[in-house]
């Protein structure tokens, strides 16, 4: 979702302005000069301009919010709105036409298909709806043609945010990237994978949203571990006499650790099943919303391993406590 547009775009290389950190962060600074230089490079089949920029959205009923205008001509074969559920690309091409995702009606203050609003300098009309095309930022994507995007945003001449480079069949994109880097002194050239990676890192590690997300996850791990540790510790403390009896019966400390770890493991399994049940409900409930939650089998497995690991760590305090018991207490009760 974070890199939806990069994933969808048909191109091997991305030409961006220097330091563009993500799809939404390109500026509109590339000129036709770079496009021609790229086109003149051997192995390059096609160079498709994209215009992407944040813009003010004025709601029909007053007030405003922000959208990310994505201007590209589907005919170029580079990027087109995907998962269209109402309207077509031809509809978007009609006067004032844009396509937005159907989960954003309330954020955008509109009723649905056919609604009109204003983006930056001009009027737009919702002529197509996508499904599940969400933005990691607060701002929905508004898809339109390249030229309408330029005119809405007031772009001078034929400037673009990105050039999407399609290489000739059999060409080595990385060699072409290196060649383009030599030629284009004022722009940066990245493979699709590199750009994707950079966007992901940008959102996850450099923005407040990503840091809040990671911080929340770490806090969850910490709090979870502490709670399980406390539970295990107090249940162990309540049963110290029984552990002393076990010790008196000759059990090795390994056996006692096994008992505690088994409890930790059971907590992990039950806790995981409960957590997963809740998570699945939340995932299901979030599907129609602007921020759908995704749960893949790999993620579910990873979480299970993490839960087991957390519970094993939690068992440490209980184990330390039990290691200190004096089996002589068995007689003094």
């Amino acid at each position, binding site marked *: 979702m974070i890199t939806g547009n990069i994933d969808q775009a048909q191109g091997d290389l991305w030409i961006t302005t220097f330091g563009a950190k993500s799809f939404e962060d390109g500026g509109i600074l590339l000129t036709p000069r770079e496009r021609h230089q790229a086109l003149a490079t051997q192995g390059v089949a096609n160079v498709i301009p994209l215009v992407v920029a944040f813009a003010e959205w004025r709601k029909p009923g007053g007030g405003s919010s922000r959208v990310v205008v994505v201007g590209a001509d589907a005919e170029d074969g580079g990027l087109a709105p995907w998962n269209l559920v109402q309207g077509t690309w031809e509809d978007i091409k009609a006067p004032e036409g844009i396509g937005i995702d159907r989960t954003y009606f309330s954020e955008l203050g509109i009723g649905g298909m056919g609604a009109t609003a204003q983006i930056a300098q001009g009027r737009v009309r919702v002529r197509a709806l996508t499904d599940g095309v969400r933005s990691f930022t607060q701002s929905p994507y508004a898809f339109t043609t390249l030229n309408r995007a330029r005119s809405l945003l007031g772009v001078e001449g034929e400037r673009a945010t990105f050039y999407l480079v399609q290489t000739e069949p059999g060409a080595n994109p990385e060699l072409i990237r290196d060649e383009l880097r030599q030629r284009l002194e004022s722009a940066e050239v990245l493979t699709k994978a590199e750009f994707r990676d950079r966007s992901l890192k940008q959102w996850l590690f450099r923005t407040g949203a990503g840091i809040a997300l990671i911080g929340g996850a770490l806090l969850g791990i910490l709090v979870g571990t502490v709670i399980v540790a406390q539970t295990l510790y107090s249940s162990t403390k309540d049963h110290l006499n*029984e552990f002393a009896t*076990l010790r*008196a*019966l*000759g059990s*090795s400390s390994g056996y006692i650790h096994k008992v505690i770890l088994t409890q930790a493991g059971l907590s992990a399994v039950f806790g995981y099943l409960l957590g997963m049940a809740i998570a699945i409900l939340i995932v299901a409930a979030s599907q129609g919303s602007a921020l759908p939650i995704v749960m893949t089998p790999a993620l579910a497995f990873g979480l299970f391993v993490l839960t087991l690991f957390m519970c094993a760590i939690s068992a440490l305090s209980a184990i330390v406590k039990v290691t200190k018991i004096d089996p002589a207490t068995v007689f*003094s*009760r």
Partner: protein
Amino acid sequence: MKAGVQKMAAEPVLEAKDVVKELGQGAAKVVALKGVSLSLIPGELTLLMGPSGSGKTTLLSILGCILSSTSGSVEIRGVPITGLSPEELAEVRRKNLGFIFQSYNLFPTLSALENVRIALDVRGETGYPAAARAEEVLRDVGLSNRMRNYPGNLSGGEQQRVAVARAIVTSPAIVLADEPTAALDSENGHAVMALLSRIAKEQNRSVLAVTHDPRTLSYADRVIKIEDGLIVGEDRRPPGIDGPHITDLTKRRKAHA
């Protein structure tokens, strides 16, 4: 002591020499045992009697490899236990010793059968043979129809018999019991003592029981009297005589002295 000569000839399974134990620290320091020597041989039920605070429990803990002595030596089946690590002591307990406690110390969340099985589980014996062995021993102590009961649903006498089963299921050479009848009424007290006596005789184990309880005297093959951390007397039932014999220890002690 002439009467005991024949039995003394048997190889001792446990030998303690000059055991001294200091407990507590600084001003609160107590010398609980002041040089105790004794040996246990198979096939005998020995009672350890003495007033409160005389060091009975302390001695039992040291003989049971649960507490280490301040000085002196303890050998179990010829192997000295002095200087062993807690893990090694646990292994000695696992291999040679069974314990019975005044308050039974059963695991309340386990059934009678599981309480007995756990002693085998601790030794890595699991599965069907372990279960069958635990059932056999429970049947032997007269609990064949109580195996699935939890300790909370058993009488004190039944609980102590489960504890006896747990102590002997691993066939230890030595069974140590601290006040096994103190929490039981007369009838159950007698039943448990009879059981301990039978275990000593039939299974040729060495059973040492700490007790205050004069009712237990009639089951003893031998009585050791301890006072203030020192053994002050010992009496032994002559071989071939059944039934109550050792009755008034104090008189006998005077006679010995």
